[in-house]
């Protein structure tokens, strides 16, 4: 019986993040004595969406095996956010152009990373770190010349609610489900996981290794750009430090969500459990009125702690 529960749990690594999120949420409800507790969850879900969007791209990269990671996400978010907001210039007339340009930035950034990794054979960690700083400084230079304000239509879209649930959360939960399906049922998805398990075997089996890895980085760039655009709209404009937390957060939601850091196994549902967890923790600390310092310390310790415990489980299995 015990063994069956164990097997059932091992096949569902995302359960832990949801359980932890639920516990912290209930604890918050206790601290706040039940006031505004559903509203809290809706707000947490709103911010969790931004983490989850970049988390999808990061998850695909990490699942593709050791060494694969995208550290350019904050730079891409910021640059795409600025380009999109700059073209929108606070009016709906520029909406289409802004969206198109922002998305183009994401695709180009992803392609640039592919060039570094596959063309120049720079390790992804160093290549994407360096390119991320290049994108960030492009955003800095561009920010001097522009009034980065979102189109009103995009602002209301980014904050819209359906039955109390943020609309963008719904959209990206559906997208996450599609990604989960793709990982299980499409050649692309199976290839990503196969490469993550054993790149040599994947090559010998005749999989399109280079093309698959290239798609992963382009997708990650695209998703980072979308997150940057939506986050800028939601916060009323782009900001130079808006991506700063996302380097760690994009990796944290992947790892806490149950995706194996060694690659070859992804846990898309876990992205949402982890993202919600990280947000309700912040909410709880806010309710307890501690400063930003404690928030950062606790977030960092949770990530290191969970990683150490989860890896222990992997080894025992």
């Amino acid at each position, binding site marked *: 019986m015990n063994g069956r529960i164990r097997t059932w749990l091992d096949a569902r690594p995302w359960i832990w993040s949801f359980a932890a999120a639920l516990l912290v949420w209930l604890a918050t409800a206790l601290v706040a004595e039940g006031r505004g507790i559903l509203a809290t969850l809706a707000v947490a879900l709103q911010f969790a969406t931004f983490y989850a969007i970049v988390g999808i791209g990061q998850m695909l990269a990490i699942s593709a095996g050791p060494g694969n*990671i995208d550290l350019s996400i904050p730079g891409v978010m910021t640059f795409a956010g600025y380009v999109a907001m700059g073209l929108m210039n606070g009016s709906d007339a520029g909406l289409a152009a802004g969206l198109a340009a922002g998305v183009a930035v994401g695709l180009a950034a992803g392609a640039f990373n592919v060039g*570094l990794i596959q063309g*120049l*054979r*720079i*390790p992804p*960690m*160093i*290549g994407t*770190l*360096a*390119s*991320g*700083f*290049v994108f*960030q*400084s*492009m955003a*800095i*230079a561009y920010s*001097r010349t522009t009034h980065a304000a979102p189109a009103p239509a995009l602002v209301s879209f980014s904050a819209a609610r359906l039955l109390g649930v943020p609309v963008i959360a719904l959209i990206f939960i559906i997208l996450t489900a599609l990604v989960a399906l793709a990982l299980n049922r499409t050649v692309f998805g199976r290839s990503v996981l196969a490469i993550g398990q054993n790149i040599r075997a994947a090559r010998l089996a005749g999989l399109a290794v280079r093309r698959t890895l290239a798609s992963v980085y382009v997708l990650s760039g695209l998703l980072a750009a979308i997150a940057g655009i939506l986050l800028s709209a939601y916060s009323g404009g782009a900001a130079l430090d808006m991506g700063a937390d996302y*380097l*760690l957060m994009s*990796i*944290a939601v992947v*790892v806490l969500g149950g995706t194996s*850091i060694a690659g070859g196994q992804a846990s898309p549902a876990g992205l949402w459990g982890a993202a919600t967890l990280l947000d309700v923790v912040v909410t709880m600390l806010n309710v307890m009125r501690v*400063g*930003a*310092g*404690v*928030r*950062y*310390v*606790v*977030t*960092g*310790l949770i*990530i*290191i702690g969970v*990683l*150490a415990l989860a*890896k*222990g489980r992997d*080894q025992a299995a």
Partner: protein
Amino acid sequence: MLRVGLPAVALAAMLGAIFAMQPRAMSYFGLTVLLNFTLPAIFAAMAQMAVIAVGDIDLGIGPFISLVNCIAATLLATHPLLGWLSFAALIAAYAAMGALIHLRRLPSIVVTLGASFVWLGLALLVLPSPGGAPPAWLPALLAWRPPLAPLPLLASVLLAALGEFLLMHTSYGVVLRGIGGNPRAIARAGWSLLAGRAALYALAGACGIVAGLALTGLNTAGDATVGTQYTLISIAAVIVGGGEFVGGIVTPIGTVVGAWIMLLAGSLLSFLNISTDWQLSVQGGILIVVLGLRALNRWSAA
């Protein structure tokens, strides 16, 4: 030879360009001004080198330097003993981080990123808004004008020589480098990989503390975000200076040269009247170009 030779030539070319544009930089005083901020950078780069030597990477060194900066501008001045004790605790924390990474076989990138939040949070707790003041001896030490050569130059040469001796010419140095290159051989020879990794991380923490102290002496104030840039600078310095991300190949002399190159790239920009907005691009770009050239070199050799 090419490993250290190429960056050295690049550095000479950069210095030549700066001296040609600004001959006054070629004096004792000019060099002091030009090179002042290389002091925190060379120690940050040494810290990063200790971690890269075992095949890991430290994405938290920048925020760590900020934390040291904040402690140095508050506790160290008001309660010196408490200040030094907290530095000792930080070194122990770095050693513990190395031990945890080894014992649990965790990816250093995630652990050090997680730690970066801890450092940033602690820095904000120590000093919520920029300000504070270091103990008087610290700025005085940084303002010291030794005979013959300016302080940053002297410190760079001494640090490079010391690092080269300890890591390249002592037997334990060879063991430490071996952990990144061939851990099984080192373990078979009876050395503790755990102790080795913890020692290198402790060394990284100690170098990070010196970097933070030097930065505080120059800025004479604390700021919880002042060190952010040193993460990129330190990684780039190690790689540009001839280090390899895989296999524990590092060179202390090259790392110091690499730190100078990254710092002078910023000065060169301002001499050329290019906005400092592009500084990150130039630093990231140098890293990409160097690694790209190395890839080309491998192709032509193969």
